[in-house]
């Protein structure tokens, strides 16, 4: 019984961490979306100086561990004279990382739109950018919404890695409680439940938006 009550006693403290997790994730997804959209389009560019760096970016960030990336940003950059606090460092690392994954999602989304859409828009005199903005990306976004939802969920979970650089998100706060109470199982399990509640809510939200957009 004590094992369960320990979770409830510390619930407000843990929920504060959950809020930080959500904030951290949301900011990172925002960065990831902007970055991913640009790089995703860059991957499809015929211009080499745009295409090659985009590809290198995606391959490198997908091919290296997030934990290492976080460490580079927080512990490594100060040696180059760029000093970031733990929280912004985590946002930067997570944002850069999700940018790579979202870039691939966006690329697939753009490629899912029939070529005729692009041609029709260009034949009306729209520029490449106008065509992307008004014709291709809005349609692509609808198609990739489920994949973006997945990425949001993955990032929510991965944000727990920010605990290693001292960001007081959910995981970190759980560890604080454990060092005080030694209730490893119930606290970790409690944290798992809170993560699950967050990801489950996100997945429901995404599905709701998906349905709304399918009607429109």
């Amino acid at each position, binding site marked *: 019984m004590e094992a369960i009550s320990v979770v409830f006693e510390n619930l407000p403290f843990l929920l504060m961490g959950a809020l930080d997790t959500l904030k951290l994730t949301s900011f990172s997804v925002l960065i990831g979306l902007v970055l991913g959209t640009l790089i995703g389009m860059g991957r499809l560019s015929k211009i080499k100086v745009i295409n090659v760096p985009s590809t290198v970016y995606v391959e490198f960030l997908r091919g290296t561990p997030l934990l290492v990336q976080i460490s580079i940003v927080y512990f490594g950059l100060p040696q180059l004279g760029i000093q970031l606090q733990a929280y912004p460092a985590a946002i930067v690392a997570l944002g850069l990382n999700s940018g790579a994954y979202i870039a691939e999602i966006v690329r697939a989304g753009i490629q899912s739109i*029939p070529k005729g859409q692009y*041609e*029709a828009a260009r034949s009306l*005199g*729209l*520029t490449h950018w106008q065509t992307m903005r008004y014709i291709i990306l809005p*349609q692509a976004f609808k198609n990739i919404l489920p994949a973006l939802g997945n990425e949001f969920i993955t990032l929510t979970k991965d944000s727990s890695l920010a605990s290693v650089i001292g960001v007081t998100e959910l995981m970190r706060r759980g560890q604080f409680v454990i060092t005080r109470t030694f209730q490893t199982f119930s606290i970790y399990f409690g944290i798992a439940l809170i993560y699950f509640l967050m990801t489950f809510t996100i997945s429901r939200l995404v599905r709701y938006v998906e349905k709304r957009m399918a009607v429109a």
Partner: protein
Amino acid sequence: MSKILEVKNLHKSFGNLRVLNGLNLEVGQGETIVIIGPSGGGKSTFLRCINHLEEYQKGEIIFLGEKIDKHHSNLNEIRTKIGMVFQHFNLFPHMSVLENLILAPVKVKKISKEEAIEKAKAMLKKVGLLEKIDAYPDNLSGGQKQRVAIARALMMEPVLMLFDEPTSALDPELVGEVLEVMKDLAKSGMTMIVVTHEMGFAKEVADRIIFIDKGVVVEEGTPDEIMKNPKHERTRNFLRHIL
């Protein structure tokens, strides 16, 4: 009759595949040209070169006295003067009929939204679809989609209209309504190049029929000349197959 378009010695290949092999054509103001020919003969590619959806390797395309090639400084502006209608309509499915029509006038020509809407209504009336102004493309029949696509192209007030097999994706009973709109357009004096095998349409409105095969103009003439008295064996063979 002033010249709208002049194509000289046009060559185009996709990799090793040579599609256009020195194609020549002149189109005068108000002319309706119908292009026929076997599939794979270069008809569509030729149309797509005119508004530079495809690049070409050799030759010249001169539209209103300006050379259209990849070095042209403002292809987007040229494209606003050349309307194109596609086989598969290519309406924007995430936009209503009205939004499809006003997007380019507002974003490219920068006319006011109110003015664009008024114009869109007039244009939809012309193609008989005013009641569909708020519909989405998915809720239109093929014939209606193509008529909207024609209206969308006309919104830019083009000087030249290109039709790339506009009725070949349609159920037979829907072909007529699209051809009617095109006939009206031709009779109103629009300069048109139409790739189609609708010989009835060609007979009624074409000033000239062009037979293209293997990337060159094999034969050209009035509908009467081509349909009753084709000079070339290839033209005769082709006509036998489609008539």
